[in-house]
């Protein structure tokens, strides 16, 4: 681990991270507010039968209780975009970007192995992902407290939500990093990482909207993180196992592939 490289990687992200953390807190605060303001309306709409049941359970969340709203808030494209900026964007462009700019060569001229370089960058990017996740969840908990809904959340279970959520997004982050070590340009790396995320999002959403395709949700990593269920005491250890296995496999791949790759002079 190179702490200097770790610190510099964080420094590259600091402005973006500050903006996204603020946006994440804002989004998090908004979830309990929306729940407080609209849950009765949605419940009425649901009982009236105007809206099909499937549409009332977008992904694995719902607006009928606060834990469900939190799930919805974390599966919303906005939340995915905020975390994805780092889990997909920063990860996939990190090493491939240095490679394309030609600065990877300057870095690797220092006494640092490729393994150490990978680990230092990976830890820094994973930390940014964790910070954004904490910002969103912190905003949700803070928002619930401000409008007096704290009793609807078991905050003692929040660390498990963080553990599961971090595992999920670590899986996308390490995939992005694996793509980053595999390509000499950030374009293909970010394209494949984004496609990987969208594939899982598609499997999750299509399964929730179309009952005949419900089986597809099991194949989506996003389906293995349900903060609403965790907050109501229904954490499935298999979910943890799946997301952390999905996070570790790309790490193993990267640590095998990156040191063996030839790094010809940048174009």
């Amino acid at each position, binding site marked *: 681990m*190179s702490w*200097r*490289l770790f610190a*510099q990687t964080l420094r*590259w992200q600091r402005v973006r991270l500050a903006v996204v953390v603020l946006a994440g807190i804002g989004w998090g605060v908004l979830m309990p507010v929306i729940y407080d303001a609209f849950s009765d309306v949605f419940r009425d709409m649901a009982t009236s039968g105007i809206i099909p049941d499937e549409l009332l359970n977008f992904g694995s969340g719902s607006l009928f209780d606060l834990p469900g709203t939190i799930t919805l808030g974390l599966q919303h494209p906005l939340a995915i975009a905020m975390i994805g900026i780092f889990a997909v964007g920063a990860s996939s462009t990190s090493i491939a970007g240095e490679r394309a*700019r*030609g*600065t990877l*060569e*300057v*870095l*690797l*001229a*220092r*006494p*640092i*192995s490729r393994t150490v370089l990978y680990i230092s960058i990976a830890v820094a990017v994973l930390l940014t992902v964790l910070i954004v996740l904490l910002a969103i969840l912190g905003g949700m908990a803070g928002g619930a407290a401000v409008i007096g809904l704290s009793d609807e959340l078991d905050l003692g279970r929040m660390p498990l939500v963080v553990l599961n959520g971090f595992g999920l997004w670590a899986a996308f982050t390490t995939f992005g990093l694996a793509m980053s070590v595999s390509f000499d340009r950030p374009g293909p790396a970010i394209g494949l990482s984004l496609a990987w995320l969208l594939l899982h999002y598609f499997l999750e959403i299509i399964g929730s909207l179309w009952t005949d395709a419900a089986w597809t949700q099991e194949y989506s990593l996003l389906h293995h993180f349900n903060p609403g269920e965790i907050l109501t005491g229904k954490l499935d250890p298999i979910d943890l196992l799946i997301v952390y296995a999905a996070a570790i496999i790309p790490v193993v791949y990267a640590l095998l592939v990156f040191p*063996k790759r*030839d*790094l*010809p*002079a*940048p174009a």
Partner: protein
Amino acid sequence: MEGTPSDGTAAISTRGLTKHYGSVRALTDLTLDVNSGEIFGFLGPNGAGKSTTIRTLLGFLHATRGSATVLGLNMVTDSVEIRRRTGYLPGGIALYDSLTGEQVLDYLVDMQGREPKRRAELCDRLELPGSVLRRKVRDYSRGMRQKIGVVQALQHDPELAILDEPTEGLDPLMQHAFYAILDDLRREGRTIFFSSHVLSEVERLCDRVAIIRAGELMAIHDVGELLARRRRKVTLRWRGAAPDPTTLPGLEDVTVDGSRITGSLTGEVSGFVRSIASPNLEDLTIEPASLEEAFLEYYAPGQATTEEAQDR
């Protein structure tokens, strides 16, 4: 072709170093020794395999076969330690545009884990004052970026400097400042391995030079010897008719034009000058031997690489 075995300790030693990309032979059976304390020029046109050699030595590329040691360390197993004791300037160096020159140098020397003992001196000699170093790299000209590249390669006072076309982008004044820096490093016993296609700087700086073409080592020479062996262009003008050119020892490709004789001279000049001493000799011009001629000779059609010979 193999490099001349060294008598001293080899700072770099390669044995049959080969790098192929599929069917493309970027480097074939390179065997050479770079002695400690010398400036060694690695000369060749674009695409000859100079950067491939350097990048293989530093562990960026994996050799198809062959072996190498750098500072006595195994190129494959001791790559990190090699880079700890080496300074490297990549060809066409890329820097972090969003940082200032000073931040780039700080970052890279921190990563090196050494004190920037030479930075102040190098910045002074390359005319990089604090006002320039405090500017963002994105505002730098190509020459300024190259100067930062030189400083980052040498600021930690490495035992061995590997420089890939180091004077690219430097103006003539800065090139001379750079040459003076290398001269000083040589005096202090540092080893410099640098690639170039600028013949004059190799001639000016290097103790020995290797010529590489299409991935194969064509020749490796002491620069002094190489220049001494070069053909010099000689022009003689006589009072009255020129003498019989066959009486002029060592002169070849002779052309007689009235009282004027031109030709090319190989070998020692002193013997030739003694032999032509005559009161009738009105003028004598001996053009200095140029490494360029030596270089061009190696690139003449008769000097085929193994690959070319096999193709024929």
